[in-house]
């Protein structure tokens, strides 16, 4: 961070740009000016906070303000431009619906996230991990399986979903299967790469101790692979949720986030659709954040984690 580039552009240039933007907005539609004003306001507040970097809570506040700015622009824009609710509801309406439909959202959350995504995630990542260790032991498999694996990983899973629904039925098992397929290869590739990431000297050291395969695996290769494994887990965490939801489009019981979304679009209940999307975003971000947190604990020693305090 010591190398932040400080551009010494004179301040008036920035303001001139802002003024120009306002002028252009005003020329198109006066309402745009207000929307733009919200944006600039949020930006200025964030700029001020960022300057006082000593406030270490800036790391949380700044993205929050950024998000609030976006929501405010959405709300105000929605109201002023009178966008139909069957196309895009306002954040306030979504929030109201969120509160009113807590029970439905919870049922859907359990069905999709806890049953579908989480079980698939655990199963997929777990089996990929085990296979990675096995592959790592047999270079022949590595040479043969990885290119094929990369090809399979390129399969658009949206296409797999109907097939897996056909195979595993319409309940959460098929959603978990889709998730397994989705997370398997990213996890496999990352773990294999991680297990190979030890440098020659670290391995030679183990050889000088005449250490056994398992000792080397446990004491050297697995710890060294952790940053890669977490990379895989992070990718998998975003994929898992998407996979579980997507699979519900191809057949499902009458609960679940994907089911609710598609049904509600058909009923023009867009506020409920967006409430589900909010749940998905929160669940996904929390899932991702949880893994990132765990990563920080487990790979505290890695340079990418050390720099942060």
């Amino acid at each position, binding site marked *: 961070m010591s190398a932040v580039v400080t551009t010494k552009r004179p301040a008036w240039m920035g303001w001139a740009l802002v003024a120009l933007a306002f002028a252009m907005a005003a020329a198109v539609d006066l309402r745009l000016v207000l929307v733009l004003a919200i944006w600039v306001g949020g930006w200025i507040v964030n700029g001020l906070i*960022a300057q006082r970097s000593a406030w270490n809570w800036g790391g949380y506040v700044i993205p929050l303000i950024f998000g609030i700015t976006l929501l405010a622009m959405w709300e105000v824009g929605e109201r002023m431009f009178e966008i139909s609710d069957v196309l895009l509801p306002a954040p306030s309406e979504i929030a109201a619906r969120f509160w009113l439909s807590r029970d439905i959202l919870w049922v859907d959350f359990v069905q999709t996230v806890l049953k579908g995504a989480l079980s698939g995630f655990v199963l997929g990542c777990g089996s990929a991990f085990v296979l990675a260790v096995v592959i790592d032991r047999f270079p022949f*498999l*590595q040479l043969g399986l990885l290119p*094929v694996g990369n090809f399979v990983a390129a399969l658009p899973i949206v296409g797999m979903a109907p097939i897996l629904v056909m195979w595993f039925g319409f309940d959460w098992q098929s959603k978990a299967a889709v998730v397994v397929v989705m997370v398997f290869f990213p996890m496999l590739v990352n773990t294999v790469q991680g297990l190979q990431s030890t440098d020659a000297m670290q391995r030679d050291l183990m050889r000088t101790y005449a250490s056994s395969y398992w000792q080397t695996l446990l004491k050297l290769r697995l710890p060294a692979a952790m940053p890669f494994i977490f990379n895989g887990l992070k990718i998998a965490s975003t994929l898992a949720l998407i996979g579980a939801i997507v699979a519900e489009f191809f057949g499902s019981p009458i609960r679940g986030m994907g089911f609710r979304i598609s049904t509600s679009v058909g009923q023009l209940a867009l506020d409920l659709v967006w409430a589900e999307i909010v749940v998905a975003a929160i669940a996904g971000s929390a899932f991702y954040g949880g893994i990132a947190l765990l990563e920080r604990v487990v790979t505290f020693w890695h340079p990418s984690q050390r720099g942060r305090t």
Partner: protein
Amino acid sequence: MRSVVPVLTVISAIMALWYIAAVPMNAPWAYDKAKRAGVELSLNDLVADTWSQEKPKLPAPHQVGIEIWETTVQKNITSKRSLIYHSWITLSATLLGFGLGTVLGIMLAVGIVYNRVMDMSVMPWVIASQTIPILALAPMIIVVLNAIGISGLLPKAIISMYLSFFPVVVGMVKGLRSPEVMQLDQMHTWHASPSQTFWKLRLPASMPYLFTSLKVAMAASLVGAIVGELPTGAIAGLGARLLAGSYYGQTIQIWSALIMAAALAAVMVALIGLIQRIVLKRMGMAI
């Protein structure tokens, strides 16, 4: 080259497993048919039947192979029944979305690296954006864009862009930050301007990261294009083929579209790999 034998071995193993799996997967339907027809099935009959059903649960590899052959080589490429025609439709949306996503991704990454406020505010939202199920948004995106008169390639490309900008941002932020402090200090001692530092140091240093993320982005972009083709209805493209196959229970058609899509992705990724090799070689970064 040394991986040819292992790859062939693995592929044959997969094929063998595939054939074997097809028997139990498709057997219930075979028995069902036999029962209703009132005949007994010998093992031979069973195997023969499971490898030749019209709408099998799991089509045998040769069935898929024949379908692909018939819909590529034996069809005029302008025919709507040609998989090549549909691949091209999907590919054009993929490439446009990929281009847009790459540009957006790089611009965001540059902003994040050069602007402190962006650095602190944008990233969590970029991550959150990827947790939104795109398939849920896709129809709405298409309807909304339709409403303002945009249709055809662009809506699909925008969905592709949505999926593909993410790996590019992540990779490029890492890449643009990959120069060591010392290398930045060097630039400083020469009193280089920010743009000189960008073009002569940060950008070249980020090349390996860029290419790695481009490969991921290309695969993601293809998924986006296919997702974009689902809600627009079975109009054209591999996504439409998947949908139509699914609608009519034509598993063979689904599988052949799937394999085409994977092949398309593999070819595009390999192409990026080739460019990567050439560029990095010219930059002296690959041996």
